């Protein structure tokens, strides 16, 4: 990706941050709610695309990291120390060894074996959340996760929104800079693992690194979700929730850093707009997905870039 596009990505994130910031000024609860969900799911999808789009690893268990982040924040703030910011930081740090452990178990395998292993481990986490009722609250989950703590008070909707916005902008930029760093380049080089081995790199370590970063960002989004919703249930560890970032990423375009963001925007808009026709919404999503996979492998962003390039070429030809 050239420098111009890199700048475009950074500029887009900053402009998006400003626009989302302006929404907080409206004070409209509906817009704040939708935009908060957009930011949380965007981080979740970006973290997923680090694995899928860059490291070429198809996971069906990404929800376990989202759930880990959410539950650690919930449990920590409810039982140990009542503060959302500290709860969020604890969940991020705790996810590092967890992601390394899961990565160590799963990353020796690739393709469908990796996908099935992540799915199985995710369902294992789901089972723990359901069965360990005394700690996790079972199927009722955790209720009353505090927004007001010893250090931070984000109990007003606007402050909660700004809290999410800050983490969204900072994390999106940091992840982007990471992908464009030397380490990120090695992750992108996983596109040809054999060649990577013969350039003196330990492929397993690079995969593990990508997996850990991806898990930590997913945990961050889960933690923000727990604080935002105040209620969490084991559904977020269920495999269908793990498939959502894949759908969002494919919708937007996995070849582009900002593709997942566009995918989330479409996904959240569709789910909201079609809520009235709830029974048909999955049908509509299914048709959209089929259309995109058959016609636009690069997702909506890929299609838009293709159209823009063709228009530019056409203009150049006519000017000649």
């Amino acid at each position: 990706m050239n420098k111009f596009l890199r700048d475009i990505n950074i500029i887009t994130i900053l402009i998006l941050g400003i626009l989302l910031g302006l929404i907080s000024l409206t004070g409209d609860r509906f817009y704040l709610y939708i935009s908060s969900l957009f930011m949380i799911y965007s981080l979740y999808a970006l973290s997923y695309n680090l694995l899928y789009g860059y490291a070429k690893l198809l996971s069906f268990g990404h929800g376990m990291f989202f759930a880990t982040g959410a539950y650690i924040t919930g449990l920590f703030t409810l039982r140990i120390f009542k503060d959302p910011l500290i709860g969020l930081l604890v969940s991020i740090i705790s996810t590092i060894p967890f992601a390394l452990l899961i990565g160590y178990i799963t990353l020796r395998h690739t393709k469908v074996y990796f996908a099935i292993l992540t799915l199985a481990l995710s369902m294992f986490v789901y089972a723990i959340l359901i069965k360990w009722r005394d700690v996790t609250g079972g199927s009722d989950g955790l209720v009353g996760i505090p927004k007001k703590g010893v250090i931070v008070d984000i109990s007003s909707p606007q402050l909660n929104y700004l809290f999410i916005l800050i983490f969204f902008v900072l994390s999106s930029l940091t992840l982007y800079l990471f992908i464009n760093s030397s380490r990120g380049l090695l992750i992108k080089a996983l596109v040809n693992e054999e060649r990577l081995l013969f350039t003196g790199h330990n492929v397993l370590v690079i995969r593990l690194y990508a997996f850990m970063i991806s898990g930590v960002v997913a945990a961050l989004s889960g933690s923000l979700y727990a604080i935002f919703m105040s209620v969490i249930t084991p559904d977020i560890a269920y495999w269908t929730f793990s498939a959502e970032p894949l759908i969002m990423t494919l919708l937007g375009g996995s070849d582009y850093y900002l593709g997942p963001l566009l995918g989330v925007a479409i996904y959240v808009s569709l789910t909201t707009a079609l809520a009235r026709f709830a029974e048909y919404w999955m049908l509509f999503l299914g048709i959209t997905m089929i259309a995109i996979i058959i016609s636009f492998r690069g997702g909506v962003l890929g299609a838009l870039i293709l159209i823009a390039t063709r228009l530019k070429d056409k203009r150049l030809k006519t000017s000649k």
Partner: protein
Amino acid sequence: MREILRVENLSKSFGKFKAVDNVSFNLRELEITALIGPNGAGKTTLVNLVTKKLKPDQGRILFMGRDITNLNSYQITRLGIVRTFQIVNLFPTLTVYENLKVAALGSKTNNKEIEMIMSELRLDKYKDVKVMNVSFGVQKLVELAMALLLKPKLLILDEPAAGLPREDRKNLMRILKEIGEKITLLVIEHDMEFVFELAQRIMVMNRGKIIADGKPDDIINNSIVREIYLGES
């Protein structure tokens, strides 16, 4: 000349087919050796065994006196055995510069050296072009540049001239002769003109075995080699 690589009784079978059959040889430092033989002779399999792309059924490989038989490919590369591939093997979605950078990161080479090698191999103008969008000849040069950035002590080139137009072959010959003054080379090649101009020593493989090993003049007069290549008896 000091011995750099020793291969002892190396074998590899695929089912009942013996691709490499109890092969032993050594390579001497700064010598340009060519490995030739008809298709299916076992040349690439032998290289795959030395670089651990494949696991040998039996045998031992020593590099600069160290037993590397049980090391992984990336560890062998880090020790200084670097290879290129018969079919160009790069990171297609990355740019030429990024491909070289990945190699440089593998040997902790700095960016200045990347620029230097790009300029030496005349790759500068393709710097920001994705590898999948450059010509086959440029891809071959990128592969060579990557190999050089890995600071090899032994460079194994699997059919470096295959598919290259005449002008590019001349250029490659010049580059390899220069490299051969600083790095030990093992070259697999089918183009005999290319081999006899480049190599100081030639090993001939047939049916998984090394059947002749010597200086180019000896090989050209070897009756078994002539029989295999020219059908002379």
